[in-house]
């Protein structure tokens, strides 16, 4: 009987832990929605800021974040997916693949601020790219590369080997098998990883802070070598460098728009993954 009581006590404790986590999410999201919802309007989303972030909107910061995400996608996705194909389909046990796996694991643990230092030291100064959209996007691409690789690898390895063997037995080459049988089935998993990676890139602040983001700019970036505005940095800079009472609407509004964007991307990723889990049961 005492054993049962003990069990009940511990289970209650664990339920409490889960409850705390759920509550933390609810409070944070709820509070930011509550504070920011009043600021959001069509004007706020489509206009440039005026009078030191007290009037107008955050249009250029939204556009900057979208440009950044698009560039990160163009750079990181092909490299990440192809690397994942290489690791899981070609050289599973070779020494080079072993090194590659170690490199990917370690890259995943490198702090974002260190990527920022790399971007500054290598891309901005050594390559002479200057403070630019391109330098920031490349830095973020480095940062999300391990995420793309890991997610894609897991998706590819979830495809049963019987499928590959059946295809190969019909006389196709390895690449044909991958192209027509392995990749189509792993696409949803890869897509999930890509969306999560991009949402991570959208919210990162430290790396872009050191490689090209600016607080104010009267025009949109003209090309990839131009500086740019972005939501996470705008939130950080307004919150730490301006008088709170003056710009608080902009702070709450920026936080909310960024949060909504990132949460929607996360939900989309989760939905895609769950649907595909039900669709393909091996």
């Amino acid at each position, binding site marked *: 009987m005492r054993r049962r009581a003990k069990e009940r006590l511990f289970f209650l404790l664990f339920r409490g832990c889960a409850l705390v986590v759920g509550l933390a999410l609810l409070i944070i999201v709820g509070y930011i929605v509550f504070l920011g919802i009043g600021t959001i309007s069509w004007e706020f989303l489509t206009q440039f800021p005026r009078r030191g972030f007290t009037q107008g909107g955050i249009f250029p910061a939204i556009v900057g974040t979208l440009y950044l995400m698009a560039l990160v996608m163009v750079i990181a996705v092909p490299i990440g997916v192809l690397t994942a194909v290489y690791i899981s389909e070609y050289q599973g046990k070779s020494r080079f693949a072993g*090194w590659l796996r170690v490199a990917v694991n370690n890259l995943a643990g490198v702090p974002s*601020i260190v990527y920022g230092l790399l971007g500054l030291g290598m891309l901005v100064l050594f390559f002479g790219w200057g403070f630019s959209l391109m330098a920031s996007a490349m830095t973020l691409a480095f940062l999300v590369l391990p995420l793309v690789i890991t997610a894609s690898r897991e998706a590819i390895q979830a495809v049963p080997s019987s499928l590959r063997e059946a295809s190969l037995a019909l006389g196709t080459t390895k690449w044909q098998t991958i192209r027509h049988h392995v990749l189509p089935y792993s696409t949803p998993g890869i897509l999930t990883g890509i969306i999560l990676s991009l949402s991570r890139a959208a919210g990162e*602040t430290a790396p872009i802070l050191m490689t090209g983001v600016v607080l104010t700019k009267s025009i949109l970036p003209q090309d990839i070598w131009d500086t740019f505005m972005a939501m996470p940095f705008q939130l950080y800079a307004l919150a730490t460098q301006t008088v709170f009472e003056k710009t608080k609407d902009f702070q709450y509004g920026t936080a909310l728009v960024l949060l909504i964007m990132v949460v929607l991307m996360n939900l989309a990723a989760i939905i895609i993954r769950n649907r595909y889990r039900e669709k393909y049961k091996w």
Partner: protein
Amino acid sequence: MAYRQRVTAQRRRFYDRAVYVILTIVSLFAILVLAAVAVFLFINSYPAFFLIDQWQFFTGTVWDPTNPIEPIYGMLPLLVATLVVTFISALIAIPIGLGATIYLSEIAHPRVRKVLKPAIEVLAGIPSVVLGFFALTVFAKFLWETFAPGWRPDDYLNLFNGAVFLAIMMVPIIVSLSEDAMNSVPRSLKEASLALGMTRWETMWKVVIPAARPGIVAAIMLSVGRAVGETMVVVMATGSSPQLTWNPFSSGQPITSTIAIEIGEVAANTPHYHVLFELGLVLFAITFALNFVADYAMRKYTERYQ
């Protein structure tokens, strides 16, 4: 007909070969990036080894790089602040994270799990700058105004304030990784234990958790690495004053904060600039070591159950 088939077969084989070569080259990129991180951190901090007294850098108790008479670069205040926030956040996140994991994987009703798991994933997706903003504008005020003077934190923005939100970032990492570890414990082990008359709690405590321990250790190491390297939360929440203190309720400035705040204000190739890269190198070394331990634990784990 036969001739044509032979040609296409040849072409396909050539194509296959070409794809292999391309994939190999592309895969080099990840290794190059890691090498670039190490090389550029080293190159950019190398001058600091001579310009700055290294003994003073590692043992100095004062960080005052903008001192007009003579800048002082002592890393200890920053390192101690990093240790304090990491320790406190681990203290909060590890029990809560593991408790939530056990709840999710062993106790929760499937319907609850269906809601809670995505919720934790969404929590993982919240940008650190938003968490930092929340800590700065909401939570710091809450801590300050809820407790009477004498009981409340010594500073409005303090290390504890940052640690709470680092813990919120760590929990989802711990949950998702250690849940994987617990789920891959063979079911036969669990069933054997239950069949011997153990309660579910005893089974969990004495069978499942020990079996999953390497995976859980890896999860904790990776989440601690994340806390050590996290920047925006501590920049915004801990109040930026590089003082040497072990008191979590006073303000402080961890290593990551220092880099983020000061890198924008220094000119390239000045001593201060090189010192900031050296701080980056220290940070890289710490996270590299944590990763190494996690990797080792993980490898041991996969060896055990395959």
